[in-house]
């Protein structure tokens, strides 16, 4: 059957009887109803497309931007899933045989924020660190960029660092935000983090291994969660904390899901990877 034999939809509206011919003459009211129907159907399709765009296409766009951002910052250890040597197979590029992956030796680990290299706060929307979360897979490596502006940072570069909060390794609270859904959704599984999980921050100068100490769900206006001492604004900090904030519940912006952690140790970059990033928790 050819497409020609199908009556264009809309023509059916206003046909008073089942008789296909002769085609009845339609009044202005019928035409108005038909047009309204078409416009409503179109609006419905556009709304459906919007949902598809938001839930899926923004991920496509942002993941592209975020991997590009990560490739632009060069760390001593590549911020890419290193091929684990235990598998033996030559997963290296250009047929290279994989050399044993170097792990940070214990004597380089400093279990105190004292002496940790603290980088200066970079310009807005500058990617300055990578976040590794073993709980979310050994391939979970996301760029961390300066600022929490949605347009320039959160919707494009992914994880954003609250301006004027501590930098990685610094005594105070290294506070970062990320989308729970859409735009690459870096913190989509934030509710799966448990006390003791490693949160590893990689910068040009060092590795910082934090451990989750607590989680909480708060109202959006509770800014004390990113205070230098979390939940105790005005208190002088003595430890290096990390705080992750994201939406809660998922697909909503009603509340905020908060994860707090504390620095376990740091180590200078250039001596291999921390074992934690390969530990399957």
């Amino acid at each position, binding site marked *: 059957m050819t497409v020609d034999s199908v009556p264009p939809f809309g023509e059916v509206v206003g046909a008073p009887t089942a008789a296909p011919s002769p085609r009845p003459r339609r009044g202005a009211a019928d035409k108005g109803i038909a047009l309204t129907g078409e416009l409503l159907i179109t609006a419905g399709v556009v709304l459906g497309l*919007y949902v598809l765009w938001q839930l899926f296409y923004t991920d496509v766009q942002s993941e592209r931007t975020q991997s590009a951002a990560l490739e632009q910052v060069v760390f001593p250890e590549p911020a890419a899933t290193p091929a684990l040597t235990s598998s033996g197979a030559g997963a290296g590029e250009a047929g290279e045989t994989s050399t044993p992956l170097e792990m940070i030796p214990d004597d380089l680990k400093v279990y105190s924020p004292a002496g940790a290299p603290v980088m200066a706060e970079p310009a807005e929307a500058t990617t300055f660190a990578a976040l590794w979360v073993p709980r979310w897979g050994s391939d979970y490596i996301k760029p961390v960029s300066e600022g929490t502006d949605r*347009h320039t940072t959160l919707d494009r570069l992914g994880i954003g660092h609250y301006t004027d909060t501590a930098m990685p390794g610094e005594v105070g609270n290294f506070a970062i935000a990320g989308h729970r859904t859409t735009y690459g959704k870096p913190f989509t599984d934030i509710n799966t983090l448990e006390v003791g999980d490693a949160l590893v921050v990689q910068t040009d100068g060092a590795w910082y291994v934090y451990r989750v100490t607590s989680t909480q769900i708060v109202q959006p206006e509770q800014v004390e969660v990113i205070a230098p001492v979390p939940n105790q604004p005005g208190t002088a900090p003595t430890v290096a904390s990390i705080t992750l904030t994201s939406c809660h519940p998922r697909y909503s912006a009603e509340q905020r899901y908060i994860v707090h952690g504390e620095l376990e140790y740091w180590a200078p970059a250039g001596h291999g990877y921390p074992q934690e990033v390969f530990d399957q928790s």
Partner: protein
Amino acid sequence: MMYPWIWRHLPGPAWAKVTMLVLAAAIVVLSLFEWVFPWIFEALPYQDQTVGDA
């Protein structure tokens, strides 16, 4: 009304009309995805994941 009108006014045989309509739909969807929806989203309060600016 408008869709039958478009169908009647497109030249060529049915398969050519269908091709043109598919192309047009693709262009419309792509421009919605790339420009219109991001612009609408900017104006909406959803998806804030920071504290303090709600």
